[in-house]
């Protein structure tokens, strides 16, 4: 079903895509059952640990737009995590040599009386204050559980301030209780950009690539790769300007480093403005980058140039990869990541010759908005060996139980707050926090050497584990890791 840009709120991933956060089984089984439009029932848990919410995901993207501001219509706690959005912002600005500046966000400080009498007036003032203070090119109004449950009229307030605020003021519906899939917050942010910022193209720019990412550490690498194809990347949406976002419709193609992040925006741009969206597996490892570059090449008619580029990149790195595979012989790993990375890294670790004993995915989308199953999981499931696969919104008691049973050499994780528990078990943890880890041929080799380094000296975690007792009862370690996951009635 096409993405509907005539509504204020992007429907949640559960509603749109049949996304789930509870499953335990095998990779092949999950892929088989969710192929051809099939679905699996989400299994709830009777014990759960902290997850994340849409609000954080929406704000981490939007707070990165350099000349926009956010009005977070919420109690103060919902803006507490802007502390780390600010860290990402300051790091990013430092590396771009842009000078130190805080993110532009005000919180409306909803209090008890506002939950009784409504918070519309505070929101109105918050928007006017954000305008007065920052003079941004756009203002995003992010919602919260509190504003959602009491039913504040966000649209009404926005239309009231239109005359006083001469820039787009856009609602971002990211109430935490609406979805267990925090990535729904990415969609909420992209939906706001699509409905409030993006304009029809003034002209088509055949060299321009919309490059959807988070922090953009591989800018130089990608600029070089694209340069050899006569293309030019525009990194979105953090560190982009409102003006740049307004004309993403002019690009020749949209690509993403993370299909969980980019599929909504990419699909919408394709449907709305005819900008093709590259639907290949993500660009990690040799297979990933090659499929992805070919996808870009096909979209812009540069197939031959892409083949030449792939050949030279491959040649420069093949010997290193062979050496890495030799070193990793017999090494075993568990991985826990968001769906795009969990699926993609099954391939990455196979290329490095590291055996994956179990993969955990923080949620699972049975299909993307363009109607197909995620290509990376289809590819991973096509391998000869099956692997146990679980879906959970970062339920670390399940992960800890699994790690203590399997005792892998390595734990690969993406998303903060997960790798620490493996480290405390004495397992070498290599976090994949930078979205461009293992990106491309060079990236895969760099990642491989990073793993070699981690395995070369394991003293920190070995000694830590001797001193630290994890919080779980002995009873828990004797249970099945999914003892609290309700059984699916088949």
């Amino acid at each position, binding site marked *: 079903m096409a993405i509907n840009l005539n509504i204020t709120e992007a429907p949640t991933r559960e509603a749109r895509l049949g996304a789930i956060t509870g499953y335990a089984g095998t990779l092949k089984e999950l892929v088989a059952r969710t192929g051809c439009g099939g679905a699996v029932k989400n299994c709830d848990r009777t*014990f*759960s*640990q*902290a*997850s*994340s*919410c*849409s*609000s*954080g995901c929406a704000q981490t993207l939007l707070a990165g737009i350099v000349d926009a501001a956010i*009005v977070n219509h919420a*109690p*103060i*706690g*919902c*803006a*507490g*995590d802007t*502390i*780390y959005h*600010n*860290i990402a912002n300051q790091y990013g600005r430092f590396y771009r040599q842009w000078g*130190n*500046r*805080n*993110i532009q*966000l*005000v*919180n409306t*400080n909803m*209090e*008890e009386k*506002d*939950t009784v009498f409504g918070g519309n007036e*505070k929101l109105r*003032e*918050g928007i006017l*204050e954000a305008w007065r*203070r920052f003079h941004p090119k756009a203002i995003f109004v992010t919602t919260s*559980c*509190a504003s959602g*449950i009491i039913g504040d009229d966000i649209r009404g307030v926005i239309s009231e301030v239109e005359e006083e605020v001469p820039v787009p003021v856009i609602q971002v519906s990211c109430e*935490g*209780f*609406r*979805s*267990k899939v*925090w990535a729904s917050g990415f969609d909420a942010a992209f939906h706001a950009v699509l409905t409030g910022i993006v304009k029809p193209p003034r002209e088509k720019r055949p060299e321009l690539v919309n490059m959807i990412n988070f922090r953009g550490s591989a800018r130089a690498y990608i600029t070089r790769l694209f340069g050899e194809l006569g293309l030019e990347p525009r990194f979105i949406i953090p560190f982009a300007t409102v003006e740049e976002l307004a004309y993403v419709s002019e690009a020749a193609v949209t690509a993403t480093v993370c299909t969980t992040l980019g599929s909504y925006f990419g699909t919408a741009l394709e449907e709305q403005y005819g900008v093709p969206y590259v639907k290949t597996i993500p660009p990690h490892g040799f297979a990933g980058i090659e499929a992805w570059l070919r996808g870009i090449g096909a979209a812009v008619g540069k197939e031959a140039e892409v083949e030449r580029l792939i050949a030279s990149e491959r040649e420069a790195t093949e010997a290193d990869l062979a050496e890495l595979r030799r070193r990793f012989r017999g090494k075993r790993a568990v991985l826990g990541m968001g769906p795009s990375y969990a699926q993609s890294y099954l391939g990455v670790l196979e290329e490095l010759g590291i055996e994956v004993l179990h993969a955990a995915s923080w949620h699972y989308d049975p299909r993307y908005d363009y109607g197909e199953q995620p290509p990376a999981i289809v590819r991973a499931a096509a391998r000869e060996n099956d692997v146990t696969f679980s879906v959970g*919104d970062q339920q*670390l*008691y399940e992960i800890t139980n699994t790690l203590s049973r399997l005792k892998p050499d390595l734990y690969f994780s993406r998303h*903060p*707050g997960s790798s*620490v528990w493996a480290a405390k078990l004495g397992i070498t943890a290599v976090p994949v926090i930078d979205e461009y880890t293992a990106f491309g041929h060079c990236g895969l080799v760099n990642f491989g050497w990073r793993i070699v380094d981690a395995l070369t000296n394991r003293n920190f975690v070995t000694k830590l584990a001797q001193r630290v007792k994890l*919080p*779980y*009862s*002995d*009873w*828990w370690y004797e249970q099945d890791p999914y003892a609290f996951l309700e059984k699916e009635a088949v």
Partner: protein
Amino acid sequence: MSTHIERPRYQCALGGALVTINAIERAVAIVHSAPGCAASADGAATVGGGYWGTTLTDGRATPSTNLIEREVIFGGEERLAEQIAATIDVVDADLYAVITGCMTDIIGDDVRAVVSEFRKQGKPVIVAETGGFKGDSTVGADFIWESIISQYLSKTAVKDPLKVNLFGFVPAQDVFWRGNLLELKRLLARLGVTANTFLTPFDKIEDLKGAADASLNIVFSDVHGVKPAKLFEELHGTPFVVEPLPIGPTAAEAFLRRTVERLNLPQELLDTVLAEEKAHYYGFVSPFTDLFVDQDFQRFGVVVGNANYSYAVTRFIADDLGWIPYFVAVTDLLNEEQQAKVLKRFSDIDETLRPKVIFETDTDRITERLKEELAREEDPYGTPISPAYVIGSNLDRPLAAEIKAGFFGISYPITNRIVTDQYYVGFRGGLRLITDVVSALVANR
């Protein structure tokens, strides 16, 4: 009327309760709220608190009911009961604290009834309603302390004359709470007093359970922890006193003198302790004087911090460092009565050194107010406070840059260094503060 706030310098009430429980060994929180609350609050506190990190089942492993739309409609009580029972099985702890978020407080789950079922079975479960809209972290810390005091502490009629409890610390809001508590404990131990600190990695939960036998509660804040101390007195008969955070030799000496008087401790012992601690301080400060004086490191002080730190730091730079306090922004959300208490404290500072004090939590408005203040003074040479120095939080770096001032972060959030066992209280803490503040002035050499 309360108003909007740019990038808050705290978490919500839920966050303050959560980090307090997280800092208590073998206590575990059960968050009854939407999926993101626990991780957001904990993440903000542990990152902004100098990268504090996880201890027991906290961080992303915090037990949490993760309620969604369904429970908004049908209520979350059943889900909570199920979660408490499971948490007791899965997590090996001695105290389980149910704390709630906005969502559950708005939909009106009867969490007390759910928890009382477990309490009837003798399970160590307590509950506090900490909906985020009720206030900031300090309010939530007060809520959870009141619950601990009324629902967890053992009753006792016997008081130990040489035992005190230390209160007024909100983990992460005081980024240095662990080091500060340990140093206060060390100083008091030198006087023969046992101090319960509760919130360091070395505290035993039995000491919390048995805390009612202390003969005095010392609250190191004019505003935070006072309400729980009153409840403590009411329920357990232990009186309390309020003390400012004693940073530096002048404040620390005054604190120890008052304590000796209150607890009837021997004067000779105090004299020995004071002499030795001051000898340590001046043993290092004396040779540091070469740099300090030669480089003309006297500064105008701009202090931005919570009620506890803003006064304590100002006092230290006035009394010991010999700087000129110019402008102070107290950043917590305080009511009028609380503001009056904090202002009264500032009136203890000698008039010639008393700074302009404002109550403002919003970073950009602090800058505006400082500029207004500066604009009031004519200065043909540029700025009336040159050279200046900002002691604040990481959010105040742009302010320091704007007025070309030195900068050092001591208030939440601190994200540009790691905080482990550092502390600023006492004689040695004052020495540490001088060392850190002046180090920042020579850091680019």
